[in-house]
């Protein structure tokens, strides 16, 4: 009989994860025990406190990471090989938590809906029924969104840090399931929201299945789930190459679905449009970051030795994604759909950086992608926060024609939105320029110059639709009884301020954050 050996778990290094997931569990219990009246306030404060605590813990973990002997990175493999707490993980944790804090502030916004949150009063009540009217008359709210978002954040923290494929799959599910729910909880236009949730769930389930099947094949090839073992197997070229290629392809499908890369992007516009806007902003910034982190880790660490097999595939996907995102965005008439296609285009730019797979002097592909994700997330959350503010009597005024002349009626809000558009277009002195430029130079250094040329062309196409919104806002006559701009509470305003400031600072003084990304160093295996 073998003796039972208790696994060693590095609780201290995993504290950010444990804090977030623990807070999520406590949040659920709070739901059960707190009276309805005080729930919202307590949940908001509790969630924010938990996230800030996790952020502080991340800083503390980052300060204590040790150099790995014989490798370039810093960090350690925790929890018996399941989780890698290394420089890139910690960097992504930090950025993710900052994004989450801003997003939760948007979740907590109640003033612009007249005292209730942007989420359905009672999700179980069918749209258009007496039960729904009753719920909204009583001012019922779903405060479960806060524990749900905490679970999603927990999954996102784990996803890019997973050091074996099974943990990664669990993380994928932990982050996805709450998101499916959150997407269906919009207070206004509930049918479209529920349709979005359904669509996201079905397609997401498919992609998860692909991912699992890929894991199985890779296991068949390497005989192990851990990335380090797979790396070794690829290096020694044991096993059948067919299994490896098929497995890599299937895993890529699962991950590329999450980053909304073409041709797995079809869910993005519908889900972005249907989901409650705070959730859209949260998904656009955080899911993208977590998924790219995981993509980079799997392909650079586990399949690094086979990069000549997967790079052509990523080249094609990157080119397709940029082209589809930028070109289809031109024809959009709904602001949320336009932002969705813009997020697809940006996924393409990020994939260009990824495809370079450059690890030499200067900025490596990993660092440039990390920086891009950090910069892009702030602008995206900010842009969606502005979308929340521009309202018709029936809810948000998302049709582009309604935004005409907004610059004349509310110059400040329109100015902020125009600024985010310029950042997306990559105009200098905004974070968009610095991030594009780091990604392109890393890709060029990695030999992906044809992709860089295409990316430059697509940036120009994308600039057209961003600038078109500015034209519409500032140089068109306002529509008769056009949308009003609600005055938000302190939550949304401060989230917006953070987003604007971050976009400016990362544009003018990108040095410190680039240094941070550089110090994050390489993945540890």
């Amino acid at each position, binding site marked *: 009989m073998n003796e039972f050996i208790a696994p060693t778990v590095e609780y201290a290094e995993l504290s950010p994860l444990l804090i977030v997931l623990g807070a999520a569990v406590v949040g659920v219990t709070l739901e059960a025990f707190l009276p309805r009246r005080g729930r919202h306030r307590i949940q908001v404060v509790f969630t924010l406190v938990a996230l800030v605590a996790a952020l502080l813990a991340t800083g503390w973990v980052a300060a204590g990471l040790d150099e790995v002997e014989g490798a370039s990175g810093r960090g350690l493999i925790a929890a018996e090989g399941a989780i890698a707490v290394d420089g890139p993980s910690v960097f992504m944790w930090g950025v993710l938590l900052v994004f989450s804090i801003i997003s939760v502030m948007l979740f907590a916004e109640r003033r612009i809906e007249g005292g209730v949150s942007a989420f359905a009063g009672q999700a179980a009540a069918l749209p258009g029924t007496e039960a729904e009217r009753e719920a909204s008359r009583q001012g019922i709210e779903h405060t479960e969104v806060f524990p749900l978002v905490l679970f999603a954040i927990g999954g996102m923290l784990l996803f890019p840090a997973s050091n074996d494929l099974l943990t990664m799959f669990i993380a994928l599910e932990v982050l996805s399931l709450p998101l499916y729910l959150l997407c269906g909880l919009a207070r206004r236009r509930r049918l479209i929201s529920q349709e979005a949730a359904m669509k996201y769930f079905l397609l997401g389930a498919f992609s998860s299945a692909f991912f699992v099947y890929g894991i199985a094949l890779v296991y068949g090839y390497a005989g192990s789930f851990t990335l380090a073992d797979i790396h070794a197997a690829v290096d020694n070229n044991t096993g059948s190459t067919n299994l490896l290629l098929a497995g890599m392809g299937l895993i890529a499908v699962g991950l590329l679905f999450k980053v909304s890369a073409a041709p797995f992007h079809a869910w993005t516009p519908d889900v972005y449009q249907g989901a409650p806007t705070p959730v859209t902003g949260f998904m656009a910034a955080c899911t993208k970051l977590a998924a790219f982190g995981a993509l980079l880790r799997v392909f650079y660490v586990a399949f690094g030795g086979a990069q000549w097999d997967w790079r052509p595939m990523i080249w094609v996907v990157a080119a397709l994604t940029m082209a589809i995102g930028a070109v289809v965005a031109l024809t959009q008439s709904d602001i949320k759909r336009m932002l969705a296609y813009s997020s697809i285009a940006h996924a393409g730019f990020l994939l260009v950086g990824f495809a370079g797979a450059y690890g030499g*002097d*200067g*900025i490596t592909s990993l660092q440039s992608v990390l920086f891009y994700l950090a910069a892009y997330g702030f602008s995206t959350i900010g842009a969606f926060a502005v979308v929340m503010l521009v309202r018709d009597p029936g809810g948000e005024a998302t049709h582009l024609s309604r935004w005409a002349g907004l610059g004349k009626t509310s110059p400040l809000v329109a100015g902020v939105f125009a600024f985010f558009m*310029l950042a997306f*277009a990559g*105009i*200098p*002195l905004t974070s968009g*320029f*610095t991030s594009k*430029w*780091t990604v*392109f*130079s890393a890709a*060029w*250094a990695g030999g992906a110059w044809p992709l*860089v*040329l295409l990316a*430059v*062309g697509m*940036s*120009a196409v994308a*600039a*057209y639709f961003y*600038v*078109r919104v500015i*034209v519409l806002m*500032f*140089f068109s006559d306002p529509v008769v009884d056009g949308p009003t701009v609600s005055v938000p509470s302190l939550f949304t305003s401060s989230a917006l301020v953070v987003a604007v400031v971050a976009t400016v600072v990362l544009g003018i*003084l*990108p*040095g410190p954050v*680039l*240094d941070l990304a*550089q110090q994050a160093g390489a993945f540890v295996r």
Partner: protein
Amino acid sequence: MFLTIVVLLPVLVAVVLLASPRLPGPVASWAWVGASAVDLTLIAWMWWRFDAGPAIDFDVKIRWIPTVDASYHVGVDGLSLPLLAMTGVLFLACAIWSLREQDRPRTYAALFLFLQTACLGTFAALDLILFFVFFDLTIVGMYFVIAGWGHGNARRSALKFFLYTFVGSLALLVGFIALFLGGERRTFDMVALAADPPLADSPLAGGLTLLAIGIGLAVKTPLFPFHTWLPDAHTDAPAAGSAILAGVLLKLGTYGFVRIAMPILPQAWQQWAMVIVIVGVISVVWGALVALAQTDVKRMIAYTSVNHMGYVLLGLGAAGLVADADGQARTVATVGALFQMVSHGLLTGALFLLTGVLWSRGRSYAFADWGGLARPAPVFAACLGVAAFGSLGLPGLSAFVAEFQIFTGALQGAPIATIVAVSGILVTAGLFLLALQRLLTGELQTPSALTAEPMRDMNGRELISVVPLLAMSLLLGLAPRWLLDVLEPAAVAVVELVSR
């Protein structure tokens, strides 16, 4: 830090203007005049302190993005100082011109001050990324000027301008990244790159990089075949916007050739010098012929800009014909090209402001709408005459000095091209004379909008903004020495760098 103050002063005033929404319009306009005047005084002081020679003066270098060795590096030498001064003069002229602006004067002034910072910054930058940042910001500023204060189909033209030049600037960015990656030492610092040119050992990569940078700058300059945004943008822009666009923004392109392409890619420049000469000559001839065919005075002037920028390229290309011409000829050609940039800024700025007189009186630029203006508006006629003769290269005005030197310098290296280019002068002369004849002589004719009242001559504000530009052009034509003293050492240095 002095140069930094010169560069940033306008934008600081712009921020103050934007931050005070209750400011009355006239106060904002006067603040713009004041800021531009102070800035010009500071530039004049710099000129006075400047020690003519190839060295870089007022050099400031602050670490900005150490990861990629990009820094805030600005400085002044004989290449940039004249252009900085020209920028200061032209912006002051436009400030005075726009004193009576009725349409949102505060924002208008703030935008122009922002543009001034962007232009001065581009000329002062000694770091590729810094250059690019300022270069791109000019596009944003000019886009808003055209879209917000233009007339006719302004929004469409503004968008065309933005997208066209933005695509160009992206090509430029690709070129800069290639320079960065191609260097022995990975840096964006122009001085360091010029000292140790990147991509020296691979002609193909060097040529492609020059192509990317060349396309980026050619769109801005604009050179045939990348000039098609220019007429639309000019026709629909307000007069002051056109003056800045033609006078200053086009120079950013040609300045980029002298500052970046020639010293940093000398081998490629030598190798492709003949192509550059030919592109220049095509722009000369094409610009002149198309200008001849215009029925709209502003479009005509816009196309002559293509023609004049073609001369600049001819001179700069000739500077790279190392095998065919001696050092002195190449220096003369370079000096001519640099001189032409300053001269064209002054003369075209004046011409565009003068077309603004027509627009303000009769809301039309069409030749068919105007005639016989010399009688009711003699001062206008005189100014237009001086500007037109200056622009066609009459001796005694600045353009003659410039074009004469370009032809002298280029003749040895590229005789046929130069002879073809000289014929461009003939066409330009013809089209300007034709324009003068149509507008000034014959029966008095004004657009229907104006029939009720008599044609008013130029007022004091318009005179104060236009006459100094013409006077400076005359001064440079009669006594070019004081500008040549600054330009020549810099040109010698550039020619030396190119012939490595």
